[in-house]
């Protein structure tokens, strides 16, 4: 579904991402992990088309998206950004409706199909009761759900999420990621998601790509990637990995002793 081939991105003289190749299948959740500054957010932005690529390409269904218009591209992939700098005086309803932009004319008049998709997105993300509220009045978790609703309204086969749980408490983290996983299965979405919390990654990701200094250092299922040795190389700290008592997925614990 989503293919990233030999992608290289830089700002000025600095190369931020070097020769990244990944692919995400339909119905699959791939997590991007890595230490701060390893290039997770940059990769999401590059795939979404807001950064110029130095080299490489982004493929959707095997086709390079380079020559697509912004609207055509936005009909194929939606982004859930971190909830920052949002226009406070917009209502939730208005905000989610903007997800229909790729399908609307310049005037932006939505039709029946747009309203139907909008309703579905609001319902699916539990934001329907917030519809008339202003973005600025919402909690961080609610704002994040609204941005997810907007991305769902966009009706794309690919979803890119940038640290969607960054400022959420553990309850909202779990609920949001449950929903993301459900959507991947139910709607056969290909999902690429930057995540900080390794234990959430272990629970919710099908595969994990570990970025270190802008390159893929490890790729595989959580059990393969979340090992003490790999993590020590990436994060520069000894971590203890045990198994989740119910699911048998890895659990990563700080060890207390630095390298």
């Amino acid at each position, binding site marked *: 579904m989503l293919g990233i081939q030999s992608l290289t991105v830089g700002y000025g003289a600095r190369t931020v991402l070097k020769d990244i190749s990944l692919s995400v299948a339909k119905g699959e959740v791939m997590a991007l992990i890595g230490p701060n500054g390893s290039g997770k957010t940059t990769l999401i*932005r590059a795939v*979404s*088309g*807001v950064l110029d690529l130095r080299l490489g390409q982004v493929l959707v269904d095997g086709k390079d998206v380079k020559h697509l*218009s*912004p*609207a*055509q*591209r*936005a*009909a194929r992939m*939606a*982004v859930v*950004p971190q909830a920052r*700098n*949002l*226009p406070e*005086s*917009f*209502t939730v*309803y*208005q905000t989610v409706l*903007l*997800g229909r*932009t*790729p399908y*609307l004319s*310049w*005037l*932006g008049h939505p039709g029946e199909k747009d*309203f139907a998709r909008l309703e579905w997105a609001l319902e699916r993300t539990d934001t329907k009761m917030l519809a*008339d509220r202003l973005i600025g009045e919402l909690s961080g978790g609610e704002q994040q759900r609204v941005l997810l609703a*907007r991305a769902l309204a*966009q009706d794309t086969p690919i979803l890119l999420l940038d640290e969607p749980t960054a400022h959420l408490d553990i309850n909202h983290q779990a609920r949001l990621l449950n929903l993301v996983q459900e959507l991947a299965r139910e709607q056969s979405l290909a999902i690429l998601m930057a995540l900080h919390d390794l234990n959430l990654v272990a629970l919710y990701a099908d595969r994990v790509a570990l970025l270190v200094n802008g390159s893929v250092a490890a790729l595989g299922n959580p059990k393969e990637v979340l090992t003490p040795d790999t993590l020590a190389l990436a994060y520069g700290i000894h971590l203890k990995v045990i198994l989740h008592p119910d699911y048998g997925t890895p659990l990563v614990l700080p060890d207390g002793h630095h390298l």
Partner: protein
Amino acid sequence: MDKRLTIRPYLLNILLLLLALLFSIAVGAVVIPPGVLARLFLGSATGGDILPAFRTILFQLRLPHTALVMLTGAALAGSGAAYQGLFRNPLADPYLIGVASGAGLGAVLAMASPLAAHFLGMFSVPAAAFLGALLTVLAVYWLARSGKFVPTTTLILAGVAVGSFASALTSFLMLRSQGELHRAIAWLLGGTTSSGWQPVLVTLPYVILSLVLLSLSGHALNVLQFGDEQAQQLGLPVERTKALLILAASLATAAAVSFSGIIGFVGLIVPHLARLLWGSDYRRLIPLSILGGASVLLIADLLARVILAPEELPVGIVTALAGAPFFLWVLRRTRSSRES
């Protein structure tokens, strides 16, 4: 569905505009009684000694003046709302970000240059004002930009700096060339010194074209409120859209400035009030600002004409006297909401 998508704000604004129009036409150094006004409009006014005088005042003075003021107010408020949306900044206004001063410089350059007048005639002043406005907005935007955003402080600072520079050049030009540019002084203070229908007819196509364009761009402006990056991820061709909106807003500003001089704060106050009253959906904010701007400037102009009657104050003085305190209030308000 969305309760804010009702028609009531439009009706309210149209009513206000009609009232403002009526007063603007009837009141001045000479008051035209309503009965006479009705008869003049209905064309049934034949004979009588006073009527021809009233007829001249109405059709040669009041109506064109009122039309020009209305177009100016609409253009300033419409472009103000658009600039605020473009810069994602509630303090952007054609005056504060220096665009009006840039347009003024362009206009004075054209007035001072016999060559321009020779080739372009009536259109030389608006064309030069447009060029001045456009160059200024590009300079201010480029100077104020820090990374992906245009922060309030740098925007205002860059606007003030570039605007002052343009104003200084304008003053210099006016001092150098005596006589010819004398009328420009009153004009720069925001006095609609020109009279008759010609300015109206020259301004009209520019204002209509740009305001129609801006009115139709509400959805794009809504998307832009989420920032360039998200706007593009939502499928908006961001660079092209911004270029188009900057062109249209600068065209409206230039058209307003070229005949009505530099009138501050209308482009700030009106969109702000509209936003407070009816929400920040740009699909409605732009047309409501346009209607409201026309009414507000008509009222300010009416005040300018009657406060010291029969003397006329430049309307720019009235809008600045009312607008500056309002600006400070907005500044305090946005700051305290950020801090909380």
